[in-house]
Every structure is written in C-alpha cells, then in structure tokens.
C-alpha cells in the first residue's frame, strides 16, 4: 500500500482516551481506532455518524409494502383461489409471511449495504495495521497526508501516552 499511516499503540483505555481528547482539541482526528471492546468516549468523539439505521428502516418499509403487494397480487388479482372458506383477500394470514420476509430482507439488504460501504467482500485481503490490534492493544490510526502540518505535535502527544510505530 502506498499510503502512509501513523499508528499510536496504547496499553489501556485511560491513556488512549486521554490522547484522543488532547488530539481532538488540536483538530487531529484518527481515521480509525481499534479497541478490544467498545470505548464510549471514542464512539461519541469520532466524527463518523452511521446512517445505516435509516437505510434499514426504509428497506423494512419497502420490503413490507412490496411483500404485502406481491401476496395481494398473487392471491387476489392474478390467481384467485378459494380455500378454507376464506375470502380471496385473506389479509390476516399475509401478515405473518410479511413479518418474517421483512426481517430477512432487512438483514440481507443492510448486510450488503454495510459490506459495500465498508468495501468488504469475500476473499478480500485483510488490512492489518498492527498485528495486535485485534488482541489486547488499543490502536489509533492516522492518515499521514491529512495531518502533514500537525505531524510533529501528533508524534509528541503519542509518545507521551503510548508509542508510535
């Protein structure tokens, strides 16, 4: 990979959060933070806001309407068949199918959306910044280009709290 990154590796949560806050005051934001468990301050502090919940809601809405529409079309308009003494439009019995199929649709569609946005696909080579990032270390990743003019102070803060690699 041609891009250059600066890594800050920390041993525990407190030093990570401390460095994160200091850098935030200077306007330096990491592109990614890897932690062994969710760290509240990082979640709140990162400038990334997910819109996937909105996507999921609209997938659900359209899936529900689509499935109900399809069932109505199939059972009422295209091939009306009387069974069990029910009217053609056996609406209550459509609902169970709709709920289950909507859950399936939401799950798959949000999975695909997430994968597309995160550029993840089967067989992709993993981008590993630090080999203990998935272990017990807290790793902050900085894009070197984006913070060229601040890189000295960044390095100073990082060495103060952890170490750079």
């Amino acid at each position, binding site marked *: 990979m041609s891009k250059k990154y600066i890594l800050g590796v920390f041993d525990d949560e407190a030093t990570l959060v401390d460095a994160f806050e200091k850098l935030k005051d200077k306007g330096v934001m990491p592109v990614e933070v890897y932690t062994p468990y969710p760290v*509240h301050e990082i979640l709140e502090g990162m400038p990334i806001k997910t819109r996937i919940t909105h996507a999921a*809601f609209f997938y659900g809405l359209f899936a529900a309407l689509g499935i109900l529409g399809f069932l109505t079309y199939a059972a009422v308009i295209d091939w009306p068949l009387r069974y069990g*003494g029910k009217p053609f439009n056996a609406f*209550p*019995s459509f*609902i*169970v199918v709709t709920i289950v199929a909507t859950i399936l649709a939401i799950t798959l569609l949000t999975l695909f959306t997430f994968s597309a946005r995160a550029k993840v696909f089967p067989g992709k080579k993993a981008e590993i910044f630090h080999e203990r990032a998935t272990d017990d270390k807290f790793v902050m990743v900085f894009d070197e280009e984006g913070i060229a003019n601040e890189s000295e102070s960044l390095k100073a803060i990082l060495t103060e709290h952890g170490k750079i690699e």
Partner: protein
Amino acid sequence: MEDRLTLSNKFKMLTYALMAVGVVSFALGFVFDAERTWANYLLNNYYFVSLAIGAAFFAAIQYITQSGWSAMFKRVPEAMVAYLPFAAVFFLILYFGMHSVFEWTHHEVVSHDHILQHKSPYLNVPFFFARIIVFFAAWIILSKVLRKFSLKEDEVGGMLYFEKSEFYSKIFIFVLAFSFSLFSVDMLMSLEPHWFSTMFAGKSFMAGVLHASSIIALIVIILSKQGKFPLLNHSHLHDFTRYIFMSSIVWGYFNFAEFMLIWYGNIPEETSWFVHRWHGVYKILFFANIVINWAIPFLVLMPRKSSRSKLFMIPVIILLIIGQYTELYYIIWPATVHEAKFGLLEIGTFLGYAGLFSWVVGTTLTKASLVPKNHPYLEESIQHHF
C-alpha cells in the same frame, strides 16, 4: 440525599375533587342505570389493578436482572403497588354487582346450559371470591415484604437486603404469572363464559406491563418537571421508552396472534367473541386498539431521538392511557352493557379512580426518601449514560 416529596395542597384538593366526582357519578349511575355502573366499576377496578400489577412486575424485574439504571426510580413502581389493598376492597365489593356483569352467576342460566354446568366447579361464586382473596393476599404480602426490605435498605445499607429483595422478586414473578393469568380470565374472559382463548391471559398481562411502564415513565417525568430527580438524563428516558416499546410490540404480537388463529381456525365457539364485536363502534375500537397500543408507539418511539425526548414520550403515554381504556371497553362492554354507551358516567368514574390512584401514589411517595439511599446500584443509576 434526603429528598422527600411534599404534596402541594393543590394536588391534594385536585385528587379529592376527582374522587368526589367519581363518587357522585357512581351514586347517580346507580339511580339511572345500575348495570352500566357495575360494568364501569369492573372496568376501572381492573384498569388500575393492572397498572399496580404491571408496576410490581417492573420492580421485580429490576431486582432480578440486577438493573443499575432504574435504582434511582424504584420508589415510583413501589408507590403504584401500594394501590393493591384499595383494589382488594373494591374487588370484594364487586360481590354486590356480580349478577349485573357475570352471566354465569345466574342459577337459571346455568341450569339450562351444559357448557356452563361443566364449567361450574371453577366458575362459581364462593370459589371466585376465594380466588380473589388468595390472589390479593399473596400480592399484598409479597409487595409489603419487598417494600419493607427496600425501606430497611435505606437505613442499613449493604448487600443483604438487595439479595433478599432479589430472592423475593423471583418468587413474586412466578406468583404473578400464575395468579394474574387466572385473575384476568376471571375478571374479563368469564364475562362471556362460553368463549375461551389461551392467549387471553398473556395478552392481558402484557397490556398491564405496557401501561404500567408508561405510567411509571409519566410519573417520573412529572416529578422531574417539579424539580425532583435532577439527575434524570436522556439515557434514563431511553430505557423507560425501551420498556414501553418492547411491551407494546409484545402486546401487538399477542393481540394479533389471538385474532389471527381464531380467524384462521374459524371454529364457531371461538369466533363468537369476535363476531360479537365486529360491528359498529366495536369494530372501530378493534382497529383503534391496534393503532393506539401498538402502531403509534412503535413508529413514534422507534428513532433514537424521539425515544430520548419528553416531547415525544408524553403524547404517546397519554395515548396509551386512553389505549388501555379502549381495550377494556372493547372487552367488557359488548358482554355486559351490549350497547356502546359512553357518557358522563364513564368519564366521571374514570376520573374518580384516577384521583384515588394519584392520591395513593402521591402519599406513598411522601412516606420515604424519593431517591433511595444505600441501594447498591444507586451510583450506577446516577452515572447511567449510553
């Protein structure tokens, strides 16, 4: 943190006025239409007992799951549970109105009816009241024990009373699950004694939990507007909303499952209950129940923003207060009053009960420190944030 609630005179006068309205509407109701008044009596009794039971369930669940977030507010469900002794007296007074609401209490009806004869070992007046007494005794004793532990904890501290409360809460929810199921069958399902539905008890219980958790949230919000609970934050509100949201979905599921299976099975003895309610106002109420108790809370409280704001919660809660009434009206009226009458009598009696209930909750809240002391999870509750 000694922070006791003091009731303002205005609040007391208001509750007394509401109780007076209730008493007057009852008195006038007996003069003009005794049958309808007894139906009102049953509806309102059941309404507020379901709130008390739902609150008891809420409090017990907090102990069992060792929830930290709710430790600050546990006096509110405790205060709602304090309504149970009043409800017990009211349900015993129902003896005088038995014949107006319960068809199976008439000997001449039962003697001509094989199904009712078959059910009479269970559905008979002495056993009915024995059940009421046993259920209420169990509920009152267990809730008093839990309340005593909770007050002792304020003085002594430590883990002892928390662990005791947790143990008794476990007993309590088993007792509740069994007794309240039978209670709802007695009070609501036996109004039409030929009909039966296995979903009914679950649905009634869930309705109680749904409306009790929304009332708990409402009381907390009202108290915070008065300057109490200064540490209430959006995360607490979100957790209250989760309870409302969750129980609303479960209620919607039970309600639909009950209807769908009966509709699909199409067996005459099961469908009769719904056929009876498939015309006029009752048909509107059938859909209104689903919209008020499930659809609107589901859609409004789904986004993160609205589930954390009082602005959205209060209208939904007020709607749910109406929702429990319409649901009970839908169950009770076709079986007892037959015609869908709604007037000053209904409003007056409901206001009377609401006044009594608020009076009981208010006076119980003044009896102890509003925020419990020495609760092991109190600090977690104060720091609660997500």
